[in-house]
């Protein structure tokens, strides 16, 4: 295990993944692109959890168990989100989120 790579390095990487996911969610027009942003955000959180678990021996198990739950929950949420996107595509023949404005105003 590296002695010169500290907790801050991993936290900065987690923050980078989080920000990329947030920008992806904000800027993609394809609904599945937005879903990819959600995946990136969750991965950033996972990296943070496991990094804290590694550098603090008091909650090694807690960090990893929570990371496991995050991964499983992300899979479940991606399945439902894709089912919704497929339904949207069936009804509108497009996945452009800019056209999803029937409930607007």
């Amino acid at each position, binding site marked *: 295990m590296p002695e010169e790579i500290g907790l801050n390095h991993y936290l900065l990487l987690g923050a980078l993944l989080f920000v990329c996911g947030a920008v992806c969610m904000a800027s993609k027009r394809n609904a599945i692109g937005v879903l990819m942003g959600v995946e990136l955000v969750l991965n950033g959180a996972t990296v943070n959890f496991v990094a804290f678990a590694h550098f603090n021996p008091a909650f090694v198990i807690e960090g990893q168990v929570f990371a496991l739950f995050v991964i499983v929950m992300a899979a*479940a949420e991606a399945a439902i989100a894709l089912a919704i996107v497929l339904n949207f595509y069936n009804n509108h023949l497009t996945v452009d989120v800019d056209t999803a404005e029937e409930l607007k105003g």
Partner: protein
Amino acid sequence: MSFQVFLFYLLAGLTGLCAISVVVTQNIVRAAAWLLFTLAGVSGILFFLGANFVGATQLLVYVGGTLVLVVFGVMLTAQGPFITMKTGAAEWAVSTLVGLLLYGVLATAILTRTKTNDFATGPATQQGGELTRSTVLGESLLGIEQATPKANVTGVPAEKRKDLPSKGERSPVGYLLPFEIVSVHLLVVLIGAAYLARTKRRRQAEGGQPAPRVEGS
């Protein structure tokens, strides 16, 4: 520069670069490919941190399950004009600005983090690197008390919590309940997703109702 430091920068650089590529690329299938590399890079980081089980689960569930699902969704819906959907320049500018600001805030919070005195010092390997073995993970899920080290997570010293009985009488809790909740949750999600994405019968075009497009799931 030692080998581990070089490896870390390689892995982290790959992950970060591919994450940025997911955002930047306009082609949705290429975004899925860069997302694959990002997730594999995160799995590598998890292995690097010694969390072998979580890293393997990340590969199996995220890459081999979730991402395949996403790519199938892309293939089913990305026909022709929907593969490349361009975002406007103004939206790009605002998104990039917001992203940079958010990263600045997070980086400042990270770099000015004060070290608390409650944490035990030193990396995990000095105090039993065996804690990352899958046996211990399983034992913690089953609630065997010795496997879950006591963490002073809330900041309140353990003696002050009057609502709980003393240590000898308290039964081990473990993580069994959240594990079971997650399992039932997954079952519900499976049923729900299968119902939502089922093949729908084509409605006859009568009374001005347009027939919805039949899509085989």
